[in-house]
């Protein structure tokens, strides 16, 4: 689809694309839009922001690689060209001349193929190592969660939906030893960009204390690990309100979740 005029939304997308900050799926869609739809508005926006993004690279201090990089590159190019030459050259030389050239070219091609395979294997090892570290991290986090959920010292606070979100539910697992809350939310639709949800710790005396600003996933769920606010000892209740993006020092919006110990 081609756009007829620019808008804030299109500018934001072009800007995030140029700087590389679009999530992968959106990046692919936008790149396809630029490549295939021929949208002059978006191409123009993209080129302008691309110049701005490029300035980050152009502002870096100059750095010089080893001369071997260029040598390797040009050898690879010559090897590729060499195989083409052999296909088209007239057979005017003797057998040994061509045999020698052929062996040389084969050796260069073999070297290039070996280098490519080696590079591919190194990349595979890197990817697998990355995946292993990611899984180890997930196991560690799941271990912490399990320990919290099964601890005899854990207190559970159920929060029920209020007002316009009666279907929402949340549960806080309060590990008093480690001073951590695990908050699980379901059925709470995400708020728009200019709003956030804000979790409040409500003490017996005094004003509510902000515990965390958050938003829910597209399916209305959220799972958060929250350090218990300093001085939070005389807990009476916990609540979630909707607030302007970034949250406020004190609650101003309607309660969407509320629960007591």
């Amino acid at each position: 689809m081609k756009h007829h005029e620019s808008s804030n939304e299109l500018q934001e997308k072009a800007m995030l694309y140029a700087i590389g900050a679009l999530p992968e799926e959106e990046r692919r869609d936008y790149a396809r839009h630029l490549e295939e739809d021929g949208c002059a508005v978006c191409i123009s926006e993209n080129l302008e922001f691309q110049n701005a993004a490029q300035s980050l690279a152009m502002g870096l201090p100059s750095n010089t690689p080893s001369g071997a990089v260029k040598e390797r590159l040009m050898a690879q190019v010559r090897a590729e060209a060499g195989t083409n030459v052999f296909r088209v050259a007239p057979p005017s030389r003797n057998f040994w001349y061509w045999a020698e050239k052929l062996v040389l070219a084969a050796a260069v091609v073999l070297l290039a193929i070996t280098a490519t395979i080696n590079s591919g294997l190194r990349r595979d090892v890197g990817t697998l190592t990355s995946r292993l570290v990611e899984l180890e991290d997930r196991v560690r986090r799941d271990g912490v969660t399990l320990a919290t959920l099964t601890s005899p010292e854990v207190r559970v606070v159920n929060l029920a939906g209020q007002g316009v979100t009666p279907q929402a539910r949340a549960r806080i697992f309060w590990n008093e030893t480690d001073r951590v809350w695990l908050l699980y939310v379901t059925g709470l639709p995400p708020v728009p960009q200019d709003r956030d949800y804000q979790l409040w710790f409500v003490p017996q005396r005094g004003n509510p204390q902000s515990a965390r600003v958050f938003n829910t996933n597209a399916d209305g769920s959220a799972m958060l690990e929250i350090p218990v606010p300093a001085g939070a000892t005389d807990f009476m209740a916990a609540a979630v309100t909707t607030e302007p993006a970034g949250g406020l020092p004190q609650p101003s919006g309607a309660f969407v979740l509320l629960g007591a110990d």
Partner: protein
Amino acid sequence: MSTEDQADNDQDLLRRMASKDAQALELFYDRYYRVAFALVIRIVRVRQEAEDVLAEVFWQVWRQSGRYTPSRGKPLSWLLTIARTRAIDSLRASNRRPQADSNEMDAPSRVPQEDPSAQASTRIAISRCLELLSREQRVPLEMAYFEGMSHSEIAGALNQPLGTMKDRIRTAMTTLRKCLKPREASA
């Protein structure tokens, strides 16, 4: 040579590369290997890996020169896009998150050393534009560009709401765009 003339000249080199003219690749490499290497090593941080990536970048330029169109930006922009993508792929494959040292994060981007391949005045002008950014604006920009993080990942890493993060990136990019525009117009 103005930047427009340079871009035309670069496009000519890419056309020659598409016709398998190795000398054109050599000229293109000599012109831009420093700026491309500065970007790659800033991302991957390890010299040997950065050199491997640099060779892959120019090999990709050589193989894909026939696919280049001006709608992708100037040849230098196209090259830097390839270099950034390759470097971030390499970084992810090696499972290293670049640990930008605090000096580098705190100080405005430095004026580059003398580089015979680029117009010094252009690069000094760019450095001055980068100095217009506050640290709060520059950090998310660098996390996106040099570390390949999406806006939501940056918001999470900096413990800031997504809207705030987008605002900072927008302000920074708009500042750079405005600052760079007069230079492009006069080129």
